[in-house]
Every structure is written in C-alpha cells, then in structure tokens.
C-alpha cells in the first residue's frame, strides 16, 4: 500500500462483518496511512448482533444488540449511509451509485452484502402469515402476527430453524412445529443418533418435529391455513417461518460483472479478492475455498485478512474450522472438526444416555493419536477442550474414551486448559490465543471477564469461549498464588454452597458439630448465622433448640425484630392478607394491653412495635390462642404472599388470587433461605398485587397462571422474569418448589434471588432450563426436599410458648425479673415511637 496518500474505501453492507471490517481497519491503520471510509447499509439500523437475534424475543432491545452506535462511526470519521443500498458499480471509473443517488469514488471496494433467507419456490409462500427469520424487522413482523396465531411451524430444522421454533414457543403459540426435509435435525452439524436425542429433548419441551417431509404447497386463501406434504399428510398451522438456509447476496456483484458461482456467492481467491483486484468480498456473500462460511468467526477472520491487505500485511484466508456450539432451548449441541468421518478413516467412540438426553461421539485417527472431530448433544461441557485438542493436534491419552466420559480421577478444574500450548486459539471470533489471555491476566492484572473483554475483546463475539476464559483466569491466578476462593469467613474455607452439601452429607444438626468437622477457630457473627440458616434450610428444626439459639442473628435470636431502643416488633402471619374481624379485634386488644404501636406493613399484615423482650412470650401466647402463627418477619424466610382480591369480588379478576396466595403462603411459611423472600398473586393482568416485584410472583391468565421469578423491590428494583405461562396450580407449585430449593442450595449468604440470578452464568435461560426443563435432572430431588421441609413445619413461636426452657431466655436480666429500665418512648399521633438515639 502506498504511504502518504488518502485511500478511499467503500464498504457495501453494514452487518456484523461489515462493522468488524471497519473496526479492524482502524486498529491496523499505521500512522502514515490515511483512509476515507464510506459505508452503505441496506437496513435502517446500524450493524447489530444477528447471532443473538432470538434474544430480541427474550427482552433484548434493538439497542442492546447494536455493535456500535451511530456516534462511533462519526467519531472515527466514517461516512455512514443507512437505508441506502448500493445499486450499481462502475468498475471503469471506480464509482458506486446508491439507491438515493449518492455517487462515491473508491480506490478499493469491500463487498459485505451478506446473505438473505433462502425461500424455496413452494406454491403459496407469498401468503400472509409466512415469514423469514433474518432481520429485526422480520422479528417485529413475526411478533405482531403471533399475537393472533395459535399454531406455528418453522420450515427447516437447522440451527436457525430451531432458534426460530424456540422463538415461537416464547411468543406463546399453543403449538410449534418444525418441518425438515432431511431425515434428521441439524443435518450439517450432527448425525442420526445425535438428532434422535435432540429430537426427544425438544419434543419433551413441547416442540413437534416432522422429519423427511417435503412441502408441496402452502394452503389457504390470503392467509396461510396449513401445509400440504408430498406424502399426502397435512399440517394445520396459521403461521410459518421459513428458515431453509441462506442465499448469498450476490445480485450486485452480478450486475457489476464480477465472477459469481451458479449456486450463489461471489467467487474470491485466498486473499479474498474478487475477479476485480480492486474489489474484495467477505462474509456470507463470498465463496472462498468453494464454500460459503455461514458463521460469525470465519466472517471476522475474513474482515481481518482484508484489513491487513489494505494496511500492508498480506495474509491468506485459510479453510476455516466450522465447529459450533450452541444452546437450543436448554439443550447443548456442538460439533467440531470432522463430525461425520466414518471407519476405516477413523475409530469412532460413542456414548449415549437416553434417560438423560446425552449423546457424544468422537472420531479418533486410526492410530489413536489424534482427535479428528465429534458431536456433543445434551452435554457440551467438554466442547472447548475437545475443540482445542482437535485443532492443536494434541497427542491423545491411551484411553481416548476419557475425553468424553470425563477424567474419572478427580482432576482439578482448569488444569486441562492450562496444559494447552500458548498459541491455542481460545476466542476464535477475535483471534485471541491462550498466551495473550495469560499475559493480560498475569502481567496486566485483567483478571475478570469484563476486564478481558475490554482489553483484548475475548468473548465479545459469540461468547462460546467464556467458560474457558474463566478457567484460564482461575488457572493463571492459581499459578501466581492469587487464587481467591469464595469462602464464608476466616473460620470456614468453604463457600456456602459447599458447606451446605457437606453438612447435608454428614447429617450435622448443630453449629458445634459443623465447626468441629469443617471449620476452625471459635466462629463469628458471619459464619454463625450462615450455618444457622443452612441448618434450618436442611432440616427445618426449631432454630432455638440444641446449641442453635446463640448462633442466630439478632432477630432470629428472639424470634422478633429488634428495634431502636432494644424493644422488639411482632408480626403475626396473615396469609394472603385475608383476616377476619375477630382476629383484627384480637390484634387490637393485644396491642392495647402491651402498649404497642401498630402499623399496616407493605406486605398486607400488621406490625406491633415496642414490645419488651420479657413480654414477647406473653404476647404470642394470646396471639396463638386466637389462631395466629409466627409471621417470620424476623427470619431470612418467606415473608408474605401479597394478593389482590381477585375473581371472588373484583369485576376484572379471572382467577381466585386470594385463595392461591393463601395456599402458597401456607405451603412455604417457615422455609428459611439465604435471604428473605416475598411473593404475590394477582388475579388478572392488571397486576394489582405487584407480583413482578417479588422473588416469585404469580399472575392469573384466562387459562391458568404465569410464574415470574427473581424480582426485587428495595434499593435496586428489578422486574421478575417470566419462566412459565398458563400453567395450572399444581405445575406452578412444582416449579416454585424447584426454584426455591435451587436458590436455597446455591445462593451465597444474604443474596436475594435477583442478585443470585444476576450473578448466574447463563442467566434466566439457564435458570429456566434448570427449573422448567430440568436440565440438571434434579427437579424430583428439589421437590422431595421441599416437601420434607414443609412436612417438618411447626410454628416456632408455639413451641417457645409451650416450652419453659426456651421461655426462660425471654428476660432482659438473668438475675431479676425486671424489664430493661433504660427503654423509653416518645409520643407520636396518640401512639408512641422509640426514643431517637443519640
């Protein structure tokens, strides 16, 4: 490339690869080089992340998916024309003309026109209700149409087709079908056996799969009514999404007289030049090495090759690895290397577990030394390791089946990845090697995923390498002796989750046993309540018996909330906020008798303040006689299940929300967790109970109940997210059982469900997969554990009132019966308040 001249470059196409080309060119530009960069895009939006397009249905906005804002182009001096496709190229004069009439000169032209959806010529494809799945506009049309549709189908059982089918389920269609011409799903990635496992997983989630179906006609008038197949069968659907593959956008190249392939694609050489040396083609419009690379990583590599060529670093685009890993509706699917190679060219090892929905296949070279490729369905945890082993031609161990069956010797996590060579490519989208990562982590202190994303862009493309990057962070920190574990406190070298498992396995029931077995020192105000909480979460025995009273935190210690001045407040349970006049009168009488300030709480119950510790058992004796139970307002436990009045009185209500709220509150009362948790039930979509601000919220629909989880009020409000729609009560309860047990067993101490979710790898999709789809196979265990906690429930205040030993501790002094003489109140609106502290 000549120096000191201004080179005009025009980029036709503003998709992911088009954007990446601009970014790479700016990064590779040398000080003595000057470029004028002009970008034409056909879509009205600036380049966005098409790989994660289906997340648009899961709540991501177009802005979330944007690669870089319009400002980014301006700041870098790039002229950007959107909604303005190039319609002609004059190669003689080196000019392009756009749809809006802009004529711009170029020295070099980069065609990144991408691909469009391939629509087979089936009679009836023009009918209303037939869509393609390619752009945000397509998704908006699908979303709007799905509101009035009941049964939807996707034509095409490939990667994108299954994503589209998931989108139809997410949009709430009653039936979602996948129609595939081939005899298996994802025919480019997996084999028949893998397809069978994937099919049964998808079917168990409500998708209907039709294989080896040739669609003859799309039936209907103006609107689609169904699909007629060659085998005379018929599928009754009112919407169809076509995802039958991609068609390279080479029409402009044809107009310009560039070489194109009869089956589509702009023909390029190893330097990605077209038949005109001043014109490059990259991404899905380009045909390199006789194929179209329909994945993002090779597209980015192509962008880098051309950016290099234009800045003076010639390199070739080599045949690119087409390995992929993705999560389809909670099921991992991955293939790498050559997945289909057959004997005798290789030795194939297969592992299949139909009960768990797992299929693994690896192809090993005939001499057993090299991994050629493989397929993983249902569990792709080993994908990154296998891919690297395959790519780096690492010599295999003698028992190569260990590769998929896991090392059964209990090797440390992270050790595997640290044995890779430094030039092993970890992030293939951004071409980041293990050596680069180790340098950034070890030398520059970028030891978090966020920091690494910033400094070397690792993990910013498809995100598939993130688990491996995490392992490398741990590995490097461990090597440097910086390894920091998430331990409870100085007395326990375990996380809460580990401690819970240990305590459970060993059946320990007192703090002393736990400290002796798994801790050291004498404990403290941090680990004592943590152990108290997990003992309660495991066994649900009275928190004040055995040695457990002195390990309880301030409020649990006296089963009441300590308030300013050293008095306590008392909250009887009022399930669902429903209370009889007689019970209201009792609360009033008790409050009067013991001189308590009364206030209605935000959770639809009544709080009584200003009780001396000595009076607590007396107050509760009267409340229990009147039929009240503890409200656990003092515990890291279920607080209230708020309800609106629902269909019993409300003219809008569609279900009996109060009855369900009472049922839910009665079920989970007294269950202790890492933090408090709240719930609400609304009787219709108006959501008067504010269920979406709760740890779990239930909203009535015409057909059943919608379940939302991980909402939060408080200082960082967060809306709960939908995990199940239109389920019946029994299903809803089952899902809540699983959700709560999963939370109880895995959250860090004092972590509300919202924060727990925010920290969870895989986020709401993972949580949903565990709770709804039983990804971990633990659903039944969760339900049983919850049931045993529920069976163990006793009102702990009733136990205290009836037990003189426990009652004894409710005295301010151990040597005289007096109440604390320093307690003082001030008057406030005919009631009283605690004296302000100094």
């Amino acid at each position, binding site marked *: 490339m000549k120096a000191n001249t201004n080179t005009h470059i025009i980029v036709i196409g503003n998709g992911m690869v088009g954007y990446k080309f601009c970014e790479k060119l700016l990064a590779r530009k040398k000080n003595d080089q000057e470029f004028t960069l002009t970008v034409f895009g056909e879509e009205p939006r600036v380049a966005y992340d098409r790989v994660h397009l289906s997340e648009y249905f899961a709540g991501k906005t177009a802005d979330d998916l944007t690669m870089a804002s319009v400002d980014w182009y301006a700041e870098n001096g790039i002229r950007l024309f959107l909604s303005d496709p190039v319609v002609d190229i004059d190669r003689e004069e080196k000019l392009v003309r756009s749809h809006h009439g802009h004529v711009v000169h170029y020295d070099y032209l980069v065609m990144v026109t991408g691909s469009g959806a391939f629509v087979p010529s089936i009679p009836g494809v023009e009918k209303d209700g037939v869509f393609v799945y390619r752009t945000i506009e397509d998704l908006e049309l699908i979303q709007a149409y799905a509101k009035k549709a009941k049964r939807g189908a996707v034509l095409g059982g490939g990667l994108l087709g299954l994503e589209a089918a998931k989108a139809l389920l997410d949009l709430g269609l009653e039936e979602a079908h996948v129609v595939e011409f081939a005899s298996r799903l994802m025919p480019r990635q997996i084999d028949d056996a893998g397809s069978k496992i994937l099919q049964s997983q998808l079917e168990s989630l409500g998708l209907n799969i039709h294989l080896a179906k040739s669609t003859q006609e799309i039936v209907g008038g103006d609107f689609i009514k169904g699909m007629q197949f060659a085998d005379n069968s018929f599928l009754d659907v009112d919407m169809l999404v076509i995802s039958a593959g991609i068609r390279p956008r080479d029409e402009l190249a044809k107009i310009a007289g560039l070489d194109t392939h009869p089956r589509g694609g702009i023909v390029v050489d190893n330097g990605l030049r077209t038949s005109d040396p001043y014109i490059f083609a990259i991404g899905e419009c380009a045909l390199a090495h006789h194929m179209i690379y329909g994945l993002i990583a090779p597209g980015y590599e192509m962008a880098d090759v051309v950016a290099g060529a234009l800045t003076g670093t010639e390199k070739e685009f080599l045949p690119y690895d087409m390995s992929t890993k993705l999560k389809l509706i909670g099921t991992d699917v991955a293939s790498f290397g050559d997945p289909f190679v057959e004997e005798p060219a290789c030795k194939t090892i297969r592992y299949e577990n139909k009960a768990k929905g797992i299929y693994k296949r690896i192809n090993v070279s005939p001499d057993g030394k090299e991994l050629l490729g493989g397929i993983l369905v249902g569990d792709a945890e080993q994908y990154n390791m296998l891919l690297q082993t395959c790519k780096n031609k690492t010599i295999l161990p003698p028992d190569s089946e260990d590769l998929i069956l896991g090392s059964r010797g209990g090797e440390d996590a992270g050790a595997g990845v640290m044995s890779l060579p430094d030039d092993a490519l970890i992030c293939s989208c951004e071409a980041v090697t293990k050596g680069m990562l180790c340098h950034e982590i070890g030398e520059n202190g970028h030891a978090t995923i966020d920091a690494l994303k910033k400094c070397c862009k690792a993990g910013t493309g498809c995100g598939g390498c993130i688990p491996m990057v995490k392992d490398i962070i741990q590995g490097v920190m461990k090597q440097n002796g910086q390894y920091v574990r998430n331990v409870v406190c100085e007395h326990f070298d375990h996380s809460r989750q580990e401690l819970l498992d240990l305590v459970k396995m060993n059946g320990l029931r007192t703090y002393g046993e736990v400290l002796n077995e798994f801790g050291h*020192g*004498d404990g403290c105000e941090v680990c004592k309540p943590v152990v108290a909480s997990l003992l309660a979460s495991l066994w649900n025995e009275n928190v004040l018996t055995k040695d457990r009273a002195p390990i309880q*935190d301030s409020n649990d210690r006296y089963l009441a909330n300590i308030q300013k001045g050293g008095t306590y407040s008392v909250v009887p349970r009022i399930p669902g906020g429903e209370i009889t006049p007689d019970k209201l009168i009792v609360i009033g009488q008790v409050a009067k008798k013991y001189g308590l300030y009364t206030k209605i709480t935000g959770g639809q119950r009544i709080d009584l303040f200003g009780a001396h510790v000595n009076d607590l058992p007396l107050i509760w004796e009267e409340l229990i006689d009147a039929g009240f139970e503890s409200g656990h307002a003092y515990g890291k436990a279920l607080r209230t299940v708020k309800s609106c009045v629902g269909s019993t009185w409300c003219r809008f209500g569609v279900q009996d929300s109060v009855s369900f709220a009472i049922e839910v509150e009665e079920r989970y009362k007294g269950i202790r967790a890492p933090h408090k948790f709240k719930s609400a039930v609304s009787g219709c979509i108006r959501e008067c109970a504010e269920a979406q601000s709760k740890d779990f919220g239930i909203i009535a629909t015409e057909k059943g109940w919608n379940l939302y989880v991980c909402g939060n009020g408080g200082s960082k409000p967060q809306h709960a997210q939908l995990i199940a729609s239109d389920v019946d009560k029994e299903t809803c309860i089952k899902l809540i059982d699983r959700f709560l047990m999963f939370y109880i067993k895995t959250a860090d101490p004092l972590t509300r469900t919202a924060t727990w979710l925010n920290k969870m790898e895989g986020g709401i999709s993972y949580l949903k997969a565990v709770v709804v789809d039983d990804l971990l196979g633990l659903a039944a265990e969760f339900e049983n554990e919850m049931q045993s906690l529920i069976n163990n429930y006793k009102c702990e205040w009733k136990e205290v009132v009836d037990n003189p030993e426990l009652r004894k501790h409710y005295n301010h002094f151990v040597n*005289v019966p007096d109440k604390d003489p320093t307690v003082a109140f001030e008057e406030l609106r005919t009631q009283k308040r605690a004296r302000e502290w100094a």
Partner: protein
Amino acid sequence: MEPTTNTKDRIVWHLACSVEDIPEDGGGCALIEGKQIAIFNFARRGEWYATDNECPHRQQMAIGRGMIGSQGEEPKVACPFHKKTFSLKNGQCLNDDDYKINTFPILIKENQVYIGL
C-alpha cells in the same frame, strides 16, 4: 481471673447468677448494683467474660444479646444492632477504633457466677 482495671484488694465480688443461666457459647445480662453487666460463657474455650451491656455506638443495652466468636485468637462479641465487634479481653472495638467498652473480672465458684466491680 486477674482484674484488669481495679487493684486486687479493692475488688468486691458480686453474685450474678448460676452457670446454667447463661447459655453455652452465648451471653446474658445481669443487674448488679444498678449496673447492666453482660456475661459470656465461652464454653468452646472454657472461658467466661464480663463487659458493659451498653454498646457505646448508639447507647443500646444489647451487648449481652450479641453473638460471640473469635478474630484470629482474640475472643470477641458483636453488638446485635450494627455489628460493632469488641474484644472480650480488653473491650476495644475491633472494627471501629473510636469505641471501647469496659470489661470486668469474673469468677466461677461452686456453679455460681461472680462479677468483680
């Protein structure tokens, strides 16, 4: 137990309670000569401690209801209000240098707990 603030000959021992009145590895509060004294039965270490019941942070009578434990080798108690922790040996606040509580000599004799004032 050695007195910390008074000289030996001026200590007057006051009967506070029985050993059973204070839970193992827990605490309680006794009223002695009009003063609220927190008493701790650190059974795990085989030690007893006595301090002010009042937390100097917000003048709350609550130290006796606090959780005890250790920081390194130092025995400590945490106030239930805002978790200020105090050394049971010398009363120094361990997470805020501005605060300190008084500690008192304590004596266990024939199953009875005595506090020296």
